[in-house]
């Protein structure tokens, strides 16, 4: 009962957070230099003061800022994120069309990072001075230091351009014929490089984190109890230690979901992945306010949901986290 109340409280917090994000983004965008009316007029080729003024009027850009904000909030509350200046389509449509690609990329990269990072960390913790442990340390340093776009370009050069194992960019092969299975495999084939690029930094972080927490957990009294039960070393490590060692990784992974989304902007741009990140990149270049705001709103929404899910997942893994005791 109190657990339900706690979850409801968290949802209310989350919604207020999203509202704050909308207002803040709106004000931020309008403070940025550059006038969308001029950009639109520029795209139309040649312009006069009258045309710019009429564009301003038709988009409501001549209204006072607070009036614009109020109108925007009313719209958003009704599920309408506005109309893209540039794409001439409702922003909601644009986002929903691009969202699956981004979610596929980000979630697969996150899962990959958690699984590989934890595995590397736990295995290297079993022999803290072994080869693998040093390898993980170096990998973590390199993976964490290299910028995402650079890693992406290097992977592209090696595996797509030089070795041609994977396609250079995009998400589908345009000419491919076949059923769902064939198409799904095709998407996966396209997914490999961007996913790897996006996850490398997190593999690096999680492997360090998992290594440290496993070392910590392996010294715990309950691990001695597990050994005293006569359990094999594999069961001791992968059942009794792993479940405790993975807790900090889950926490950090949830908190980093927002970083992953911003990483996706770079990865999608490098790999021409048709997701939200690239849409954001294009909209910023074109000062497409409604689209930028829509994407920011949606990202905030996704991050808040991810944090809620992390919280729930954490409760599943760690029974000590009870309602109200988590803070």
């Amino acid at each position: 009962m109190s657990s339900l109340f706690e979850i409801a409280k968290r949802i209310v917090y989350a919604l207020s957070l999203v509202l704050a994000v909308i207002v803040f983004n709106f004000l931020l965008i309008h403070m940025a230099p550059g006038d969308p009316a001029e950009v639109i007029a520029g795209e139309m080729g040649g312009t006069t003061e009258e045309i710019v003024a009429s564009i301003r009027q038709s988009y409501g850009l001549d209204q006072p800022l607070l009036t614009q904000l109020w109108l925007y909030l009313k719209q958003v509350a009704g599920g309408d994120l506005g109309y893209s200046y540039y794409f001439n389509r409702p922003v909601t449509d644009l986002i929903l069309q691009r969202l699956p690609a981004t979610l596929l990329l980000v979630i697969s990269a996150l899962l990959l990072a958690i699984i590989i990072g934890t595995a590397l960390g736990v295995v290297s913790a079993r022999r803290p001075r072994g080869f693998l442990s040093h390898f993980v340390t170096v990998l973590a340093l390199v993976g964490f230091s290299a910028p995402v776009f650079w890693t992406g370009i290097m992977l592209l050069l090696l595996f797509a351009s030089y070795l041609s194992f994977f396609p250079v960019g995009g998400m589908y092969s345009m000419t491919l014929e076949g059923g769902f299975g064939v198409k799904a495999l095709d998407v996966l084939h396209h997914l490999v490089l961007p996913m790897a690029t996006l996850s490398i930094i997190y593999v690096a972080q999680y492997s360090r984190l998992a290594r440290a927490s496993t070392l910590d957990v392996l010294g715990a009294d309950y691990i001695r109890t597990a050994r005293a039960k006569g359990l094999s070393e594999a069961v001791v490590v992968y059942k009794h230690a792993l479940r405790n060692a993975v807790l900090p990784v889950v926490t950090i992974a949830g908190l980093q979901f927002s970083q992953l989304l911003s990483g996706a902007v770079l990865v999608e741009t490098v790999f021409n992945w048709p997701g939200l990140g690239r849409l954001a990149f294009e909209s910023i270049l074109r000062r497409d306010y409604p689209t930028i705001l829509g994407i920011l709103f949606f990202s905030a929404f996704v991050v808040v949901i991810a944090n809620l899910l992390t919280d729930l997942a954490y409760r599943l893994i760690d029974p000590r986290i009870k309602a109200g005791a988590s803070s």
Partner: protein
Amino acid sequence: MTDKILSVEGLTIEFRIGGRFFPVVDGLSFDLARGEMLGIVGESGCGKSTTALAIMGLVEETSGRVPAGEIKLNGENLLQTSRRRMRQLRGNDVAMIFQEPMSSLNPVFTVGEQIAEVVRLHHGASRKAAMDHAYDMLCKVHIPAPEKRLHQYPHELSGGMRQRVMIAIALACGPSLLIADEPTTALDVTVQAQIFDLLQELRDATGTAIILITHDMGAVAETCQRVLVMYAGRKVEEGPVEAILTEPSHPYTSGLIRCTPHLDRDPPAQLPMLPEIPGIVPPVTELGKGCPFRPRCPHAHARCADMPPVIPVSANHGAACWLQEEERAA
């Protein structure tokens, strides 16, 4: 002795300190009969817990080694057995409970799961049967509302209840030997008494032999039949509880007993200060030859530069002190 279940002979355990191995336990020997309760007493750092870990075959996990001696459990030498066989015995034929009940249970599994795990492992029981057995074990260790506890996590239980769960895990497979390593140190006094009562009751019911490791002479007096006093990795005295308590034959044992507070029916007007043994246990790196207690011993003399053997005091009572020989000669 035909019903001897444990026999330790000349056990030596070494730990690596600064690149060299030093003996933490040196030439320890003792026997244990079925259903017997043996107290091993001594100050911190005198090798009690290390001896227990050696019997469990867990010394290697703590970067130690066992260069000499034998540990026979039901006639089988544990020091020469394979790791695989040792895993079969551990938790099954020989079990152990530890001094930190608060942290000795895995926080992410329910109490029931943790008891059932050992039953499934060693008896090949089904999930259902193992859970039923876990329930029976919780009843045997007198946990209130066992049905509910089965599905609770360790953090929902008090320290005393957690130690009961540890005992349930340890006894789930009906071991012939249970090692209780300071099982009550972290618990408050009333709970301590309950745990000792429980251990005795379970020993009477199952015939499990128990080694109680403690530095509490009072607990030993109430629960054990025999006592083994250790000092700096060596056995200094061994014998029946009454004999040791009434007639300690090693200066260290006498010191330990004097340090135990007593509640007298008619306390003297002026309570005497509780005596202490001056000094501390020497670090293993500084143990020379000879009696390790020599620097703290009020009776130390020239002969103590040689390590005395265990000299019999009576039929099954012996002390490693030259004073015994002199007394017998006198």
